[in-house]
């Protein structure tokens, strides 16, 4: 080489530097583009997309006869997205134009639009638009690009307060809801969710999958194009075991009662289905659909009647407890049913006089009469013979002190009164306690649900089913997601003769005793009235009842409690009757029609227009039996 006096090795050193740099860059690129590509891709996607979420219609809730109790109806929202570079005056003009048809405050709208523009986020300017306003707004849509009307599904309860304690309600998220769901991609800050009842318990199933309009935006939040309009998936429909007519009858009856407060629980004795479930006072869940919290939705000064009387109200059972006492008497073997007790209207317990509810007295009373007339003296005398421990034992067998296990929160278990709990409290048991226990006074407490469970057990021969109210859940694609099943909790084992005698007694309660108002033509009714003493005010009225048609297994048992209803006979009995009639009506009508048809075919020459209204309608199964 030419004499250049230059050190070539220095060049090599620089060369190594270039190679080293390229190597470092390669390693860094592998890290960025190969190992972490998906991470960066995700961020890039988030950068460029904005979503206007569209709430999916919640699953509907139906009664067993497929009457929709909770549905969704389309609701139109006015949204604004910062689609173009807008100047102040333009926004002001737009806000003024929108404010007029909306009837909204111009300043509020303007602020909302400015905020949306500066934050580069779409905003809902108005929700739940009526159709006439929508028309004028859609005209404005053409003038001011950036505003748009989107359709969303909004919860709607067609019958208002109907079944409100079971269905519950939905509302906006509060801080606690958000804390537990912020990571859930199905929820956003302004989604609505179930707050009580079914809506809360089956939130996951009812929710569905929200749809959304996915927008591509640039770095300044300017709309570039609509990427995708994702359709929602509606939530699963829930079919309840509730009979809508029975429920309506129960609600109406309770509402029209003296106090308008109380509870009705109707169960199917064959499997524990809940046929009607009323707790009053109730509320209209529609109030909360649009509001953020319970307080916002309520009229000023009102509190939410969330207390569920049917499950949480504990009342002295009064005379309906005599069903349990009766079982104890007969099972003890110390009280022959034909034995009579003379009732002078009172009973002298030695230290104190215990009155019968009827001061005139019932005269000589046997078991059937005692139950039918609800004679207190009969139970005072026989109850002592059977013994307080026996009564307590049967009270427990009839599931006092235990919850029904229905899938609703905060159920109360009532209270068992007897020597056992007394001894546990290290206190004494007196004769007077036995007398009170026998007629259902004293410390015994029962919830309307427990009363319904008790009468259900009588109707089906001693089986306690767990009450359930969800018959099935059907996904939006028609797939059966869940099927309610009957579940036996326990049994009370009584002799057949005992059952027969109790049923005879309960039948005479309706036919000739305190519950005569419950009579329905063509139906064999069984029942027991009760009056729960209430030291704070007027007594509470009880009526428990079940019905059979043509000696078939009973299809309905009902417990009614009317707060401050005084006498079970006047206040509670008509409600129970209405409920039972509502459930059995289709069957009775069918039987009637069948009978009429038979008549008309039998006597073609002289057709009789209608079957004579008799106490016993000859129905098809009955004829079969006769044959």
């Amino acid at each position, binding site marked *: 080489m030419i004499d250049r006096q230059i050190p070539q090795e220095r060049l090599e050193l620089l060369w190594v530097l*270039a190679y080293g740099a390229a190597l470092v*860059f390669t390693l860094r*690129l592998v890290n960025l*583009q*190969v190992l972490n*590509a998906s991470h960066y891709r995700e*961020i890039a996607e988030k950068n460029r997309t904005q979503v206007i979420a569209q709430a999916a219609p919640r699953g509907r809730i139906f009664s067993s006869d497929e009457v929709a109790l909770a549905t969704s109806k389309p609701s139109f929202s006015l949204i604004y997205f910062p689609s173009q570079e807008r100047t102040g005056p333009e926004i002001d003009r737009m806000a003024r134009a929108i404010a007029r048809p909306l009837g909204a405050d111009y300043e509020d709208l303007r602020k909302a639009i400015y905020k949306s523009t500066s934050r580069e986020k779409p905003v809902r300017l108005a929700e739940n638009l009526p159709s006439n306003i929508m028309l004028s707004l859609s005209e404005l849509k053409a003038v001011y690009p950036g505003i748009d009307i989107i359709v969303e599904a909004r919860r709607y309860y067609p019958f208002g307060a109907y079944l409100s304690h079971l269905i519950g309600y939905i509302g906006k998220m509060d801080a606690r809801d958000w804390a537990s769901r912020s990571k859930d991609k199905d929820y956003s800050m302004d989604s609505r969710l179930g707050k009580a009842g079914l809506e809360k318990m089956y939130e996951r199933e009812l929710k569905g999958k929200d749809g959304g309009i996915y927008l591509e*935006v640039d*770095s300044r939040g300017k709309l570039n194009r609509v990427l995708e309009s994702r359709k929602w998936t509606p939530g699963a429909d829930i079919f309840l075991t509730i009979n809508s007519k029975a429920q309506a009858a129960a609600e109406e009856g309770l509402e029209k009662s003296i106090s308008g407060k109380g509870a009705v629980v109707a169960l199917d004795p064959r499997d524990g289905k809940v046929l009607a479930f009323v707790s009053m006072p109730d509320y209209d869940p529609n109030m909360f659909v649009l509001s953020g919290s319970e307080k916002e939705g309520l009229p000023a000064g009102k509190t939410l009647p969330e207390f569920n009387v049917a499950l949480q109200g504990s009342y002295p059972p009064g005379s309906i407890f005599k069903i349990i006492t009766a079982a104890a008497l007969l099972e003890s073997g110390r009280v022959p049913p034909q034995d009579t007790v003379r009732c002078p209207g009172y009973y002298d317990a030695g230290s104190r006089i215990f009155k019968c509810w009827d001061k005139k007295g019932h005269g000589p009373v046997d078991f059937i009469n005692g139950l039918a007339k609800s004679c207190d003296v009969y139970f005072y005398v026989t109850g002592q013979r059977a013994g307080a421990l026996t009564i307590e034992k049967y009270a427990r067998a009839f599931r006092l002190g235990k919850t029904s296990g229905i899938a609703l929160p905060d159920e109360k278990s009532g209270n068992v009164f007897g020597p056992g709990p007394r001894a546990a409290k290290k206190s004494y048991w007196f004769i007077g306690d036995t007398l009170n226990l026998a007629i259902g006074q004293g410390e015994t407490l029962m919830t309307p649900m427990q009363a319904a469970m008790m009468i259900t057990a009588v109707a089906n021969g001693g089986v306690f089913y767990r009450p359930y109210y969800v018959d099935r859940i059907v996904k939006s694609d028609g797939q059966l997601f869940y099927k309610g099943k009957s579940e036996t909790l326990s049994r009370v084992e009584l002799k057949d003769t005992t059952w027969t005698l109790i049923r005879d007694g309960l039948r005479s309660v309706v036919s000739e005793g305190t519950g005569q108002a419950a009579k329905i033509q063509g139906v064999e009714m069984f029942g027991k009235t009760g009056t729960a003493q209430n030291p704070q005010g007027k007594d509470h009225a009880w009526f428990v009842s079940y019905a059979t048609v043509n000696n078939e297994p009973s299809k309905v048992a009902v417990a009614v409690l009317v707060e401050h209803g005084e006498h079970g006979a006047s206040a509670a009995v008509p409600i129970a009757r209405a409920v039972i009639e509502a459930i059995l009506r289709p069957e009775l009508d069918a039987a009637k029609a069948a009978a009429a048809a038979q008549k008309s075919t039998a006597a073609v020459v002289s057709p009789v227009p209608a079957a004579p209204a008799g106490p016993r309608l000859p129905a098809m199964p009955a004829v079969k039996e006769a044959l």
Partner: protein
Amino acid sequence: MIQASQSGLKKNRMDWALLLAVLVLITIGTIAVFSSVAVLPQQARIIRTQLIAIPFGLTAFLIAWSLNYQIYQDQWKYVYGVILLSLVAVLMFGVVDKGARSWFRLPFFSVQPSEFARIGLILVLANFLDKRIGKIRELQTVLGAFALCLPVFLLLIKQPDFSAILLTFPVVLIMLFAAGASVFHLGIIVGYAFISALFPILWTIITLNPELLDSALISYFFHLSDSWLSAGLFVLAVGAAAWGMWRVSVKFYANVTGIYFVGAAVVLMLGFFSGVMVKNQMKEYQQKRLEVFLSPEADPRGAGYNLLQARIAIGSGGILGRGVFSGTQSRLGFVPERHTDFILAVVGEELGFWGMMLVNGLYVLLIGRIMQGARLARDRFGYLVNCGIFGMFLVYFGMNFGMLLGLTPVAGVPLPLLSYGGSNLVATLAAIGIAQSVYARRYALT
């Protein structure tokens, strides 16, 4: 030469590998520029400029290639004069863009003379070092080289165009190093530059963490530059300390020459003064860039945000990229300066890992071929010129890649051949043409 032809070496006049690398890089760059400006309002102007610049650049390349590079050595005074004149002229007649008066506005396009000045400076410096090669190991030569650069640097500061200085300074160092200058002397220069940079950095750190001012010593240090008195006292203290240490070393019979102490003190003092000067001259955006480099989280929406978005763009490209004209990060404007300094973000997003590796590899090839030219150069001047051009590309390559990948500070350095910029492209191609001229004439006498 006879020997070479006898040994059967092919006497290629053109380095085809280099030319291929250049053309592929320009193609990638043009596609990326077109893709990134698709949504910009000044789209038409940028595309037009790019399309004008490419033929201009290729012409410049051909002219520089066909011209004997030795001409620059003969006419170095004119080269130097033209550089200085153009830089003075731009200060007088130029237009201001992005806070710097560095553009000549011509009817169809603008010209940035500092781009060409850099190449001219390499030629002038190569000549200087070639002449002084006998005294290359003397400090005077090193200082002389810098003295030659000083007018250019001062004119650039006046614009102000700090990134041009940031780019040129390492090139000068590389040329001196390649010429065989004493590493110790270069160390002094680097030390001086380091101290000049250190003071502003330290002051910025203190500004970022005001709680540090609670300490009296740091507080005193922070206010050093406020008055001449305290600054003078500091300088005196440094001088006294150096003198004291020299005396101590004499007392202990340590065989250390006094020049080291003097040199250290002088470097420290000069660095301090330059630091003060740099600090007071720094524009606000430059201050910001420094702050972002020192603590990237401080300003998420500022320069740190830009860098983060660029990194997201590169990362989201993955191995195969998102396809040309389909990068969301760059096309929707999340990546700033995407057609100039951050062009690699567009390449990374749209072409992916393989595209980045292609650019990376082509750059290494380009730098390697220029270095090969230096190695084979028939004279020392050619060698030095190619070393300078090599250094220029190395600095561009390192700083642009490094900035995007978060390894060096955000300095506003384009990537030649890829980034949009007419003057830069023409100047770059002219520089490659000169390097080619050296390569082509490796055996020739003329």
